[in-house]
């Protein structure tokens, strides 16, 4: 239940898309360029109305494709504007080429991303395949459990992106959050504006007194250093993300971190997950705790940069962990989040925790409390030595034969 944390805040009822649009209204970027795609379309529809009504000063560019949406957003950012966009699924795929260019040019573009499955077969419902595909593109990725987090994450994303000089995307799970009505605490416009501050780029194309060339070809002599600077910026962004979370807590009262732990301190078995299903897991954890089972949860909020040097340390006391991925990398190996978690354990030299990998919910396949109960039951059996940890991906709620 969302409660007022900021004395000047007020509770409103909005869908995930409505709250994303509301955050964008308060941020009031100089330029927004976007293209419609289910289930993210509403964000831009609502925002366009703000533009038409003169509620925001934003220049809205209704482009002819997502490739052009990202191209125009990048260009507007390079020109000196605070620039935003939004998309989902195939739209993010069409932006792929430009995602790497946004980060390579170190432009603080911010994007509202509504997680949706990828074709083929075509499917409009939620999973994380779209943003997982963009995980190596040099974008900061922030996942939200619910509309409140989506709203708070959007506000923080502006400051993070501009301080880190890295593009940043904030996700919600398609339909589950994007189209679901929830109570959200919103803050007054002026307070949000004060928190994000003005955008003051060091160098920009429209600064005609200091013209410059951006997007040069860099060859064997410089390319490697440029890419290293990007990688380093992603590492340096970790401090920035925590600093912004700290000032957000100070200002608005809500606490944010790389990840949220839930009943984890004394837990023996735990699930690691991201996005809306975290809420379902919390319900199950509560019920298991009532039965005396020491179950816990770790919910990833910041997936990129990944807190590799810290996360395993907070999980070292556990017996068994299930990493639940809502995307399949079809790699013949494991799913993305699992591999990141395993890396953290290995480099932290914590090798006594058993960690298994589940893939769930592709294309919006139902994931209920019953499924989560089953997973905890399996973890419990592994912890008691009754079952061996499986060494390949397990699929949740999947028909494996021609049922």
């Amino acid at each position: 239940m969302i409660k007022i944390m900021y004395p000047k805040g007020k509770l409103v009822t909005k869908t995930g898309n409505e709250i994303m649009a509301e955050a964008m209204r308060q941020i009031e970027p100089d330029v927004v360029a976007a293209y419609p795609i289910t289930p993210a379309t509403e964000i831009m529809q609502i925002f366009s109305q703000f533009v038409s009504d003169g509620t925001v000063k934003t220049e809205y560019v209704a482009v002819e494709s997502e490739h052009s949406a990202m191209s125009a957003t990048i260009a507007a950012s390079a020109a000196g504007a605070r620039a935003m966009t939004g998309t989902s699924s195939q739209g993010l795929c069409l932006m792929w080429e430009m995602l790497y260019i946004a980060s390579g040019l170190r432009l603080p573009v911010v994007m509202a991303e509504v997680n949706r499955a990828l074709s083929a077969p075509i499917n409009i419902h939620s999973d994380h395949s779209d943003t997982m595909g963009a995980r190596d593109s040099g974008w900061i990725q922030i996942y939200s459990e619910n509309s409140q987090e989506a709203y708070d994450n959007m506000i923080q994303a502006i400051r993070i992106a501009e301080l880190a000089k890295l593009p940043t995307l904030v996700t919600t799970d398609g339909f589950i959050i994007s189209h679901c009505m929830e109570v959200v605490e919103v803050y007054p416009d002026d307070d949000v504006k004060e928190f994000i501050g003005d955008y003051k780029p060091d160098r920009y194309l429209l600064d005609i007194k200091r013209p410059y060339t951006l997007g040069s070809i860099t060859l064997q002599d410089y390319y490697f250093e440029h890419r290293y600077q990007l990688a380093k910026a992603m590492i340096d962004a970790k401090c920035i993300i925590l600093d912004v979370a700290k000032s957000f807590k100070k200002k608005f009262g809500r606490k944010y971190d790389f990840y949220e732990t839930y009943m984890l301190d004394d837990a023996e078995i735990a699930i690691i997950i991201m996005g809306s299903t975290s809420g379902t897991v919390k319900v199950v954890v509560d019920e298991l705790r009532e039965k005396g089972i020491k179950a816990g949860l770790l919910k990833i909020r910041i997936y990129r940069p990944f807190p590799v040097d810290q996360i395993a340390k907070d999980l070292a006391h556990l017996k068994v962990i299930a990493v639940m991925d809502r995307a399949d990398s079809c790699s013949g190996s494991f799913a993305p989040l699992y591999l990141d978690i395993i890396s953290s354990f290995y480099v932290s030299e914590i090798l006594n925790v058993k960690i298994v990998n589940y893939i769930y919910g592709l294309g919006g396949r139902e994931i209920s409390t019953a499924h989560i109960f089953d997973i905890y039951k399996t973890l419990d059996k592994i912890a008691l030595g009754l079952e061996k940890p499986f060494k390949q991906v397990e699929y949740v709620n999947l028909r494996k034969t021609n049922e």
Partner: protein
Amino acid sequence: MVNLRELSKYPERFTGGHRLCAGCGAGIVARQVMISTCDIPVVVTSATGCLEVSTTIFPYTAWKNSFFHSAFENSAATCSGIEAAYKSLKLQGKIKENIKFIAFGGDGGTYDIGLQSLSGAMERGHKMLYICYNNEAYMNTGIQRSGATPKWAHTTTAPVGKMCHGKRENKKDLTQIMIAHDIPYVAQTYVGNWNDLISKVQKALSIEGPSFINVLTPCRLGWNYKTDNIMTVSRLAVDTCIWPSFEFENNIYKINVIPIKKKPVVEFLRIQGRFKHLFKPENIHILESIQRRVDNKWELLKRKAS
């Protein structure tokens, strides 16, 4: 009519020292376009291609104004993003100057992979000039056929062979496609007539809304002419009427350069290696068909302009 003495008072905004080939038309186009802007502040975008890679090898640049490149197919979308930022910041009083926007693209980045982005930007009415430096093939990657490559030209992906006389298809008429976008100003021009090119650029920049100029731009490597023949080959395109210089403004066509005596198209074709195979005795019918097509299109244009 442009006054060369006046233009020479302004500093060069596209400098020498870039790495374009000797006998390349792209550098001439870029330099004359930038000269056309006099002292108006401009921001330039470019598609990936010869012009971009040869003029911005890090840490050097040939551009004295702000220049931005991000990818191949999006010069127009990119320019529209910068123009949108300008509109927003100008309205907010954060920018005082009046700035103009110019997008460059080769024919690959304009006729083919960038056509959607160009079409979208023109339809949305961004105040920008798009210049296609059209050398009629993918020259940067090594002379591959494009939608702008003329029929029968030799390219590396539609090569002349035992069973094939080069490209089998006609080029698309992009200038007409742009006219169909109902934008205020569309023109064709060519390298080798600075007055025609600069007049058109200045007119395009003075107009409210989007404009498009298609510049026939010889490529020494792809067209295979002698380096010092660049002006000759380009002017022959206009003198033979295979590439007329004309403009379309307020629904009126105007032919800007009418040859005193229209030359046979073989004069244009003969000095280029890409058409060498057409001069074998057995291919005379192809040369005749090219002449017929040029004649028909020229008559059609003259009717439109009458």
